[in-house]
């Protein structure tokens, strides 16, 4: 009786327990960061070490910031649902990447020389300087 009820609930997707893991991008190699020297390294050297950033932001006075981030999370979700695929969104979203990622923000001066490297949540780090929104290309 219990088995039949369990199977019936499972077959109709009334209840679910879901173990999810999301991997979004790869973090930068931290050992590469040790080769970067504020006041000496320029933008080209940083890009050669770390690859393409995830974000490029304009700061005041012709200075810029670039950011590298990635995230992964995993865990259980238990609840009731009529559709086991609801809420699963595999599309890539730069807003979500900035909100959820830990990583590094590199600040450059107006000559594009490295000023500083900060580590943490990108959404926190990106609020510490003034930036302008990106322009879309049609």
């Amino acid at each position, binding site marked *: 009786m219990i088995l039949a009820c369990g199977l019936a609930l499972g077959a109709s997707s009334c209840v679910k327990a879901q173990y999810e893991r999301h991997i979004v991008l790869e973090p930068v190699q931290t050992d590469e960061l040790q080769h970067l020297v504020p006041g000496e390294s320029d933008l080209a050297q940083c890009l050669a070490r770390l690859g393409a950033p995830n974000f490029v932001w304009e700061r005041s006075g012709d200075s810029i910031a670039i950011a590298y981030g990635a995230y992964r999370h995993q865990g259980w979700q238990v609840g009731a649902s009529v559709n086991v695929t609801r809420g699963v969104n*595999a599309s890539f979203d730069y807003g979500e990447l900035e909100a959820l990622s830990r990583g590094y923000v590199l600040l450059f001066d107006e000559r594009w020389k490295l000023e500083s490297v900060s580590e943490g949540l990108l959404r926190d780090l990106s609020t510490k300087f003034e930036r302008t929104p990106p322009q879309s290309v049609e």
Partner: protein
Amino acid sequence: MRTFALAALLLLPLAQGCFLTRDTTNQPLQEERIVQLGPGLSSAEVLELLGGPMEVVQLGRRSAWRYDHQRTKRTGLTLFVVTALNTDTQEDRLWLFFNEYDRLAAFGSTLQASSSEWVLPWVDSHE
């Protein structure tokens, strides 16, 4: 009791399943074109080589262009009421930085989209 056992057997095939999906955004970046990039190229020459960028960020009198390609692979397995789901998103990225004379000053590329994997969530991936 026999009726319940029969019902359980009939429902069993309905209570499990698996799927693999793949989503892609934009075309993969071509390494053979990226290696042709070098400092001093004009923005027109870059356009001819790579086509239009996905994003342009104005940096005062200078600018930065982004090219990208994402690949997401999802793996799902359902047994009765338990579902295991893994989503792996990886990306090719290229950022180009132009000076105030519209000449390429610096660029960086990361090509990782092809490393996206179909694996179950308890399997080590990208460790």
